[in-house]
């Protein structure tokens, strides 16, 4: 399978979901099925269909709750916003350094990558650069630049460089992250399912082919 427009778009979709809680408006949109196209395109990728179904079930299950947005926000907090003891902090450093410290070597490496591309984390987000969503957005931009190489051949990473980033900076900690996500007590299965889905999605990427890209399907990222 080739890298195509879906990859940067899905990276950014994941980045958005791990960055911040869903609003009532977003949740209702998912429950009305407006996210089906995104979920279906994920389900088309090799090996993801059953986890996508798990995520769909989680969205459906939320309709049974009386304060679904608030309960989901509490799940988000329990999963990603609390402490290093019980939650699954979405930072590469937490899984890579001794003492589960924040701002360890992975953050430094990510900081260097961003600096090299004259970028920094948005002031609104106020998170370390090894936050999962920052790394996913960086990955999405990488895909974007790769897919647009036909227009700007001098810029953007090679597919091998993208694969190396996925393997060395994401897949080195995301299994531990997803395992922790599965252990956190939550009301909904949405975020644990999402963490597994992300892991499976990323695991599939190193198998992408280096064949020429389809210029007609030029990448457009967005969230």
């Amino acid at each position, binding site marked *: 399978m080739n890298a195509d*427009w*879906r990859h940067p*778009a899905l990276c*950014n*979709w994941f*980045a*958005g979901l791990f*960055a*911040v*809680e*869903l*609003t009532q*408006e*977003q949740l209702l*949109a998912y429950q009305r099925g*407006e*996210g*089906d*196209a*995104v979920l279906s*395109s994920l389900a*088309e990728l090799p090996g993801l269909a059953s986890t996508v179904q798990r995520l769909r079930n989680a969205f459906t299950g939320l309709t049974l*709750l009386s*304060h679904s947005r*608030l*309960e989901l*926000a*509490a799940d*988000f*907090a*329990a999963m990603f*916003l609390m*402490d*290093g*003891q*019980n*939650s699954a902090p979405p930072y590469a450093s937490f899984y890579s350094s001794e*003492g*589960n*410290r*924040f*701002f360890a070597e992975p953050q430094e490496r990510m900081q260097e990558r*961003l*600096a090299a591309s*004259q*970028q*920094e*984390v*948005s*002031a609104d*987000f*106020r*998170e370390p650069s090894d936050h999962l*969503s*920052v790394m996913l*957005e960086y990955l999405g931009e990488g895909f974007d630049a790769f897919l647009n190489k036909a227009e700007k051949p001098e810029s953007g990473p090679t597919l091998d460089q993208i694969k190396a980033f996925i393997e060395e900076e994401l897949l080195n900690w995301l299994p531990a992250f997803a395992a922790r996500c599965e252990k956190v*007590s939550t009301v909904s299965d949405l975020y644990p399912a999402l963490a597994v889905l992300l892991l499976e999605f990323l695991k599939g990427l190193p198998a992408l082919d280096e064949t020429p890209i389809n210029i007609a399907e030029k990448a*457009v990222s*967005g*969230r």
Partner: protein
Amino acid sequence: MAITRRQFMQGLASVSAGAMLGPGLLMRAAEAAVSAEGSWKTTGSHWGAIKALVKGGKVAEIKPFEQDKYPTEMIKGVMGVIYNPSRIRYPMARIDWLKNRENSDRTQRGDNRFVRLTWDEALDLFYEELERVQTTHGPAALHHSTGWRQTGQVHSCGNHMARALGMHGNSVATIGDYSTGAAQGILPYVLGSTEVYSQGTSWPLILDNSKTIILWANDPVKNLQVGWNCETHESYEYLEQLKGKVADGSIRVISVDPVRSKTQNYLGCEQLYVNPMTDVPFMLGIAHTLYTENLYDKKFIETYALGFKDFIDYVMGETDDKVEKTPAWASAICGIDEDKIREFARLLASDRTQLLFGWAVQRQQHGEQPYWMGAVIATMLGQIGLPGGGISYAHHYSSIGVSASGASAPGAFPRNIDAGKEPKHPSMDYKGASSTIPIARWVDSILSPGEKIEYNGSEVTYPEIRMVVFSGCNPWHRHQDRNRMKKAYRKLETAVTIDFAWNATCRFSDLVLPACTQFERNDIDIYGSYSNRGLLAMHKLVDPLFHSRTDFDIFTELCRRFGRHEEYRRSMDEGQWLRHLYNACRDENQKAGFKMPEFEEFWEAGYVDFGAGKPWVRHADFREDPELNALGTPSGFIEISSRKIGRYGYDDCKAYPSWMEKAERSHGGPGSDKFPLWLQSVHPDNRLHSQMCESEEFRATYTVQGREPVFMGPEDAKARGIADGDLVRVFNDRGQLLAGAVVSDNFPPGVIRIQEGAWYGPEDASIGSLDTYGDPNTLTMDIGTSRLSQATSANTCLVDMEKFKGAAPAVTSFGGPIEVEV
């Protein structure tokens, strides 16, 4: 059929509409100005001044300030505090409280989940609750408190909270503190001041003049590692000299203590073992010997003291109890051979003797008595006011005993509402309750509103506290009896905490606001709380992490909600306050001949030194002229007996110091048949109270199987089949905890130690659940020392222990709640 890009993007747009965060977590970087080498910055802390290497916006290395010759190991824990995985990263609210506010299910408190709020949402809620409580219930329903806060004069969080909340309305105030409450109660009657926070006789004079030094329940080598302001560790130079004098025999040091202390081990000095909580009988035996062997200083007593006869009548068995307090009588209680008591009394009287008391003996039931008796013995010895003689209650604290430079310390961001201003809600209607209560009785007040207690000659009526706010304070460490606290918290409508890590106080709150650490803000501090050795710049090392803010910002924004933020900050920002405090300090010091450079020069250098002070003797002025320099006692003299206290008619603090049996006491005392071990909860060796407990790598240097150590002697361990390194369940009728056994010859039979400040981590929010880490206040008793002080009695505590069997529960102390209920 495959999804088209168009379908995909439409769907994505639909589910992204109204997202809380706009697209694009990355943005074009500002000009990078970070050198690869980084830069060294200066800052201070309770643990001392430090230099920090900041590289790429991160603290990369920490080393001691050059002038600190005896830095504490604890500075190794600083980075673990800044980058701790239990940092509070966002404003958070307890979900059921968010849904139902004052009608929330309070049984879930401590276990309930939280949700993230924006700062605006969180501060709106905070303000709404203050409004609700003030308008519905008035000032009696609100209580706020601070504690050992982080250091720094601009950002001192207790001041920020007290000023902001004080501008909004009145509240229930407290008196005293958890460290020295009984001392603060009794010593003004006896010596005219609280003594515990006063400068003491300078160490060089003690070293030059004392022939005997008594460390009475005092462990300065352990406790001098930390200080109220930026600690200088200057006292250690003198302790090192004392060690030399102990070795060459020129000073005899005796540690009166059930435990072989860190100081005793360091100095290589003698120990006189005394049964726990029986110092007073021992002291009465000493007084009996001094009196009957005519070893006391009659002239000194006649000139400087009152009330000797009433006291000595008690000693000689001529008062109601008809018991003569002979060394033999004392020996049966305190465990010291009667001849040894006599020998000890003779030694004290034989030459210049300096008594140095620690604070632990007054943190027990009737804790006023050993302090009063100490003053009486010092008075009988007649050496108060002489260099190297008399009594001190504070040489283990914040380098007291290091001469003061004479320079002025900087002021601070104001704690109170400005003169002439009124709070938004000026009501002083406490609905018949007291506006001020003894600090250690706030849990009583929540549990029993309207109840009346006696306190220091007056009557206190407990107010009905409905809302609490804590900043720079961990009451779920400092207060006693966790299970009782759980009951009290089920009565509270709203609890707000401002802190930087998820401790139990946050977990049991409804609204948690993330303050940044002191290493994320600019400030200044005095270097040496009592020596005033210099002025230290506290350079911000890194920007506030995550969504944390300075207390200055938090409370400015709270005050903005009632339109008084400019008044609150006096229209000055952090930088202007820094300069304002510095320049005021500079003006003051220039008058006294201490030169300070312009602010910019000082800030660049990081420090200005005021030099060493001149030696000084406590109470020398009183000794020189007791009429002109009268003490602050009712009579102006040392009061061996107090008519004023006598008039109160308290049976737990009488007109003269006396021995009273405790509610529970080891070594044959009440309750020791059921729970035979005395648990002492001393100030920790590796923390400042509960501060730095969260620092994971540093904590790992002293924990046992990830738990707080419980220190015990080999006999008690062996009798229970416990080996060094085992997990141990420590328990009594009040609670139970897990701790890790450290078996040491320092501990005699019947005495165990768990250091206070260990973070509370119960298995769940139920009453009686097992504390998974080892907070000793799970087991301690929540009673007042007496009706005089109503202070903490933490060291009156009996327990038993057993080797823990089975699967140990995970430690829950260093995180948020985990339970899910819908």
